[in-house]
């Protein structure tokens, strides 16, 4: 079991009070598993991704544990986390285009980063990996401004995976890209796992169709909690949570036309996480809600590898 998260709670401090962005999350990711983490804005998916590597200034660890390869990650302790970052858990950020120091040559920056982390040399490996994503070693002698957006993204992908982390978090890496580059980036991620450069991966996205292409399993979040986790194929073809079901059926696909089949969205809005209502958080928008939903359903296994948080998911 590469990653196991137990009852993780992370709150955001805001002017109006604490936003319970992540409110009791329990799941695990197996060795070699690529898990897609899908959800809409405000679902808590980014908070989850961030809290596994670095809480930002306004985030507070309110409870729960994270274990990676049997060791507990001290996620609330910024200093103690440094040891794990990059080596054990690494991140490809959403902001790849601006993730590189603009006034340092790329090679120099990576060298200084590696030296600071106590990793000697590594130039040959770096060049080899750049080649793997189709970049020549010349980019090391250049400043970020001299590279195109796509090149910067690939450089960041290579740097992030340089120390063969056990867990790689890819946070919305494709959302700003065109379809053809999306595909290239997604297949590169897949290649990292297949070449053994990373053990497991969490691909955070709002685009289920995209993550479906490369993920083994998909975890769907709603309003700070988990809704459903299942093998990708199952989640897309036979979802059990009413939210997932409605979400998947709201996605237009190439070939579906308005005249032939009118799709429908989910009416209503997610609840505010400042003072979230008790019980199932989807209940107000749920077509099958009943009395029991006033109580929070457990995230229970309904079939092997298929977990759902819904009283009606049998």
């Amino acid at each position, binding site marked *: 079991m590469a990653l196991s998260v137990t009852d993780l709670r992370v709150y955001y401090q805001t002017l109006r009070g604490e936003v319970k962005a992540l409110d009791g999350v329990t799941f695990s990711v197996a060795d070699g598993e690529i898990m897609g983490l899908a959800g*809409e*804005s405000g679902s808590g998916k980014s908070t989850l991704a961030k809290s596994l590597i670095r809480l930002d200034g306004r985030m507070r660890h309110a409870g729960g544990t994270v274990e990676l390869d049997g060791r507990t990650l001290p996620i609330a302790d910024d200093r103690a986390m440094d040891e794990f970052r990059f080596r054990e858990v690494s991140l490809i950020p959403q902001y790849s285009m601006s993730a590189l120091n603009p006034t340092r040559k790329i090679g120099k920056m990576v060298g200084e980063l590696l030296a600071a982390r106590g990793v000697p040399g590594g130039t040959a490996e770096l060049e080899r990996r750049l080649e793997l994503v189709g970049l020549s070693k010349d980019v090391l002698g250049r400043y970020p401004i001299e590279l195109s957006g796509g090149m910067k993204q690939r450089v960041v992908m290579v740097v992030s995976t340089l120390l063969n982390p056990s867990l790689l978090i890819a946070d919305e890496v494709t959302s700003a890209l*065109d*379809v*053809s580059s*999306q*595909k*290239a980036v*997604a*297949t590169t991620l897949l290649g990292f796992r297949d070449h053994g450069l990373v053990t497991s991966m969490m691909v955070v996205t*709002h*685009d*289920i*169709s*995209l993550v*479906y*292409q490369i993920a083994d399993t998909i975890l769907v979040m709603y309003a700070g909690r988990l809704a459903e986790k299942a093998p990708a194929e199952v989640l*897309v*073809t036979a979802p059990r949570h009413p939210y997932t079901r*409605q*979400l*998947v059926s*709201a*996605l*237009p*696909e*190439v*070939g*579906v*036309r*308005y005249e032939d089949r*009118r*799709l*429908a*969205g*989910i009416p209503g*809005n997610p609840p505010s996480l400042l003072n979230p209502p008790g019980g199932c958080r989807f209940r107000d928008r749920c077509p099958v809600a009943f009395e029991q939903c006033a109580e929070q359903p457990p995230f229970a296994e309904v079939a092997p590898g298929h977990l759902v948080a819904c009283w009606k998911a049998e």
Partner: protein
Amino acid sequence: MLKLDGVSKVYRVGAFGGRALTAVSGVGFEVGEGEVVSLIGESGSGKSTIGRMVLRLTQVSGGTITLDGRDISSIRDRKEYYRQVQGVFQDPFSCFNPIFRADRVFALIKEQYFPGVGAREWRGRVEDALESVRLDPGNVLGKYPHQLSGGQLQRMLIARAVLLDIRLLVADEIISMLDASTRIDVLNLLADLRARGLGILFVTHDLSLGNYVSDRTVVLRDGRIAEMGPTPLVFGDPRHPYTRSLLAAVPRLHTKWTDAPVDGTADGTAEERAEDLPCAYHEAAQGSRTRPGLAEVADGHFVACSGCAGAAPEEKKMKERA
């Protein structure tokens, strides 16, 4: 109704406009009443520039855009034009001035176009417009933009356009920033407007969205039309290698990329494959080249040269003639 003819846009960049950058070149297509035309392209394809030129937010460098046969740049009174043509943009949050209440967008319309209408009657009209986009007026009026969701804001903007009783709506990536569970409703709204006789120019980078809602599709690449025609034809029988590669790259829900035929794997392979396939433009008969640079391969289905080897000698000939 709306007709673009050989439209180009050249930007001057650098100090004192030293260099020229061609964003759009020689684009021509039409949007009829009650017709949704989607303009599909990747970033840098010039699709948004075309939308802005139609909205007269950017000047046309070459060619003409006409509305009912009238060159839009010759319509001196912009208000007269904007009464008929309106736009909705990508980022709903950026469309609202954050320091004012959201319904100010309606107030602006009233102030500019209907100063004579009484407050009560106007309120009735606003409420009707909001209901027509399935918003509860009580829920959205009087709120600040940050208190509303992206979907609600986007619908308010559509309601704003509806208030003017327009004939053409330019919808520039209007749902790409919305959540999956609400975007389809906004898309459906466009289809409803079309049923009311509105022409819609739907600018998008997302093929599945364009396919869902549009009657005709124009595929842009580097500022030029690669392929255009009735949506079922363009998506069902793409003739330009670029269209094909785009379609191959679209993530689908029930088919994985890996399920596709082996030749369509990672990057650029579709392009390579194009060399083997004959270029639809040069295959077509001389007589079918009814539009500049485009050959009509089926009824209303136009395709441009794939950039094949056949282009070189022909270009040479053209140059010699010129």
